[in-house]
């Protein structure tokens, strides 16, 4: 576009908000077609058990119960789809309803269909299942010991897969090192906890042989293709709608049992079937994130240069894989060298089956785990070498002149200036003053700590070949006869705000007002086949598809204008609702007038069809690599172990920003979630495999009074991977924050000689660490 952007880069208020702030939006549970029946599932209370018998007779006879389903009636439904596997992965088939055994607490055994929400749950209570509880596999390390109980009786052991990635020669790098630091670290299992639980409403119309499936998902087209496949229906007879979706964080980047179940049942009964997850079901049956225990070995020269980095990790898969369970762990390996020049690296991962729900993509998905262990090790090494944590990081950064920078994990980082982001953060935090404050506080017996995280992430997922398929995104842009524009996106935002940012992109290119652009997404009958929203790809990949589709429409409109003005199409300009000849601006028409010309089609430019509607599938040539520096000042109360974050300074470089308001919102939320993982969050299981904290009453997650005000700054290093120069921001906060918070706490505790405590740093755990050192 010739003129300066008017909307791109502006902090425009979201157009989604009026319906949301007035209670007028529609999430899955807000739709109630006449005749809707309600589904409730009877779930295993055990981590592992044999099912001796199932008696549904009382439930089936209960008032208002329409049907009851067990494994027998649903065994024709295909197993839950899995992808992203590695060559030696054992792949257990995840049935829709359990047959002879249940393998995790929460696994569904029976589904009850009743006329009312309460009636379905009442009837579910009448189902009698005789279980024989078995020993459950809970602990990752114990799971691989000889003689451990097994998750799957058919497999030799609980080993699910092995996967390794290496660059350079770690053994040689360790020999070259002056010091070697080692630590064992845990990334605990955490729950994504989108505030809207999952839900599905399936409605089959026999006369039309057509099904509509409203589901709370990030990937409506994947749901359509895969669920239609599970129930043996042509996918073009199924319409999947992701209506308003109340958060996902990766947990709704999946295909779940209840979707296929509801689809199967509505086809049998011909009535709408609704299932909405309770929060306890959400904790027990929606995927978890993280779940890694590993040993790290790092070699360094005395000047801080890293010579080798090795991570031997056990990865908690759960009992069955979900869509991307295995793939997530491979992302950890790709991210392992982080923002540093590490010539020799390797990760050796062993996947482990446990009697728990699957792990899968949770905000950051494999990358926060890598960043966490790397950034923790940088601090541990700094202490060992007597270096400042800032200097050891600087020592290993590539210079901005070294980009594109090839890492030992095989990636090519597009662009970056890591020193600049660090400088900006140090300046904003006033690092010397912070250290002085820490020193002063120590004199008063107060324990302040400063934590750094200099991170890079893999975003804009991504090249299709790198993802094992479907890394592109689609968009269609239509200029309507009256001059309004409609964007149909294959991405499926669920809170990110692309109804606004995509309108900004189109408005600028066509020289119209952003309010004249409507953005449609999340309906497979309406938008082109799409991939979805995850992996910080919505704007980077989806927005780029919008750019290309917009430009195709613009080029076509220019032909109509050129015909009208007897000018060259290359000389046509779009600005302020006008279409005009650049070299002769008096030749001008309203945007809508040219649009109407294209639809009236009384005269057509040469080789041009009527209408203004263009589609583009954008395939990125690489990932994008946003980066930044987060600095945390925290205080630990040594008597209680309580941690308070006093300051949080973040410099994030996400490339060009389409809408800074939305960018800041993403970073705020990401920091909160990453801080939650650092300080509070963890799924806890009893010996029998039952989750002990599967409710908001028992699982701590960040609340307003536990978080500080975030001070956000940016540097801007655009990427040439896409036409927007945008790098993605959905996961930056989650990736940067966790190690920064933990590093601050450990720094605060350094007078006690504490060098590491595993997350989450709950008061009890911190207090014990101090007490141990004091004893």
């Amino acid at each position: 576009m010739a003129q300066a952007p008017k909307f791109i880069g502006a902090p425009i208020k979201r157009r989604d908000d009026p319906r949301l702030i007035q209670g007028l939006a529609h999430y899955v549970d807000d739709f109630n077609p006449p005749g809707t029946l309600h589904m409730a599932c009877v779930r295993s209370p055990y981590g592992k058990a044999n099912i001796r018998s199932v008696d549904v007779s009382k439930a089936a006879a209960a008032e208002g119960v329409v049907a009851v389903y067990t494994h027998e009636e649903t065994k024709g439904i295909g197993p839950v789809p899995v992808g992203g596997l590695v060559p030696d992965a054992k792949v257990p088939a995840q049935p829709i309803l359990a047959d002879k055994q249940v393998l995790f607490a929460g696994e569904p055994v029976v589904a009850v269909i009743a006329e009312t929400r309460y009636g379905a749950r009442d009837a579910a209570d009448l189902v009698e299942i005789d279980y024989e509880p078995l020993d459950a596999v809970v602990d990752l390390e114990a799971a691989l010991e000889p003689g451990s109980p097994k998750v799957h009786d058919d497999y030799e052991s609980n080993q699910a897969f092995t996967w390794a990635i290496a660059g350079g020669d770690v053994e040689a790098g360790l020999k070259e090192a002056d010091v070697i630091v080692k630590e064992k670290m845990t990334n605990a299992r955490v729950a994504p906890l989108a505030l809207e639980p999952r839900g599905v409403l399936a409605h089959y119309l026999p006369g039309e042989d057509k099904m509509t499936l409203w589901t709370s998902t990030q990937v409506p087209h994947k749901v359509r293709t895969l669920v239609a496949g599970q129930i043996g229906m042509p996918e073009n007879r199924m319409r999947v709608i992701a209506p308003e979706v109340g958060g996902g964080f990766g947990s709704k980047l999946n295909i779940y049992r209840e979707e296929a179940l509801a689809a199967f049942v509505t086809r049998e009964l011909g009535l709408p079937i609704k299932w909405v997850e309770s929060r306890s079901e959400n904790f027990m049956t929606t995927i978890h994130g993280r779940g890694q225990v590993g040993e790290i070995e790092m070699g360094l020269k005395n000047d801080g240069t890293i010579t080798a980095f090795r991570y031997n990790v056990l990865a908690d898969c759960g009992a069955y894989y979900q869509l991307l369970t295995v793939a997530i762990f491979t992302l950890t390996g790709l991210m392992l060298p982080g923002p540093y020049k590490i010539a020799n690296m390797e990760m050796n991962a062993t996947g482990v089956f446990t009697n728990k729900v699957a792990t899968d993509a949770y905000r950051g998905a494999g990358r926060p785990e890598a960043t966490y262990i790397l950034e923790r090790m940088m601090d541990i090494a700094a202490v060992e070498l007597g270096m400042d944590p800032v200097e050891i990081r600087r020592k290993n950064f590539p210079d901005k002149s070294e980009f594109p920078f090839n890492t030992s994990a095989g990636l090519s980082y597009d662009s970056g200036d890591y020193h600049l982001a660090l400088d900006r953060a140090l300046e904003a935090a006033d690092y010397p003053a912070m250290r002085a404050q820490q020193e002063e506080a120590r004199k008063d017996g107060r324990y302040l700590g400063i934590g750094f995280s200099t991170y890079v992430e893999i975003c804009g997922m991504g090249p299709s070949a790198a993802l094992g398929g479907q890394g592109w995104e689609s968009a269609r842009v239509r200029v309507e006869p009256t001059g309004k524009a409609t964007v149909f996106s294959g991405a499926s935002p669920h809170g990110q705000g692309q109804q606004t940012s995509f309108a900004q992109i189109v408005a600028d290119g066509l020289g119209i007002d952003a309010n004249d652009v409507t953005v449609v997404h999340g309906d497979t009958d309406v938008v082109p086949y799409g991939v979805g929203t995850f992996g910080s790809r919505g704007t980077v990949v989806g927005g780029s598809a919008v750019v290309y589709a917009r430009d195709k429409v613009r080029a076509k409109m220019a032909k109509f204008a050129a015909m009208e003005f007897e000018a060259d199409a290359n000389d046509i300009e779009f600005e302020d609702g006008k279409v005009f000849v650049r070299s002769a601006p008096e030749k001008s028409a309203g945007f809508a007038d040219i649009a109407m010309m294209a639809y009236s089609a009384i005269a057509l430019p040469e080789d041009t069809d009527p209408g203004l509607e263009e589609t583009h599938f954008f395939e990125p040539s690489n990932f994008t690599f946003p980066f930044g520096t987060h600095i945390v000042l925290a205080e630990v109360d040594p008597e209680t172990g309580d941690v308070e974050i006093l300051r949080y300074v973040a410099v994030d470089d996400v490339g060009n920003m389409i809408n800074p308001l939305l960018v800041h919102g993403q970073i705020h939320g990401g920091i909160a979630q990453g801080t939650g993982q650092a300080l509070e969050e963890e799924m806890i299981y009893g010996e029998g495999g039952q989750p002990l904290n599967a409710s908001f009453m028992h699982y701590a997650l960040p609340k307003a009074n536990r978080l500080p005000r975030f001070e956000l700054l940016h540097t801007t290093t655009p990427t040439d991977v896409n036409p927007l120069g945008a790098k993605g921001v959905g996961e930056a906060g989650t990736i940067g924050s966790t190690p920064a918070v933990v590093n601050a706490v450990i720094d605060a505790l350094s007078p006690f000689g504490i060098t590491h405590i595993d997350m989450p740093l709950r008061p009890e755990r911190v207090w014990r660490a101090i007490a141990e050192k004091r004893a």
Partner: protein
Amino acid sequence: MFSLDYFMEERNSSVMKPLPVGGYASIFFSCVGGPKTLEINISINGESRTFDVEPRTLLVHLLRDDAGLTGTHVACETSICGACTVLIDGKAVKSCTVLAAQAQGCEVTTIEGLADGDQLHPLQEQFWEKHGLQCGFCTPGMILTANQLIASNSDPTDEEIRHGIEGNICRCTGYQNIVDAISAAAAQMRD
């Protein structure tokens, strides 16, 4: 179900009216073959409504399923997250742990009733202005809690706001823009 009060926060239980005479009795009789539904009269967003519901019906389900007001959300069912917050006689209450019968004769305000016609409430305006929401699922409850917060403290500090909304969970925003929105709304309401 009689223990549900246990889960309600103090500020909730203090505003609940005692059940009408026969309230608990009606619930009891429904278990032993007595009348299966209760007639409940509630004023919702200024309109008097009568419902025939099972005695065990939760207020949030009456609002969503019987009154068709789906702006009030259910997200935890344990009175922790506050997505279901409504105003009962002007006080913020978590409607997932209140029996509809307990709201007999009360004035209930839901998010749908907060704006004055086309004029958004200052809290709604400021949540929009400050980008105080992302997925929007917690927003109705958050706004109604904030409404009570401002009613009892017209000029709250950030710390007081953060304390005041600690019974409402937002998983998207990190709360900062929510705090700013509430602060700005309070200022707007003082003017």
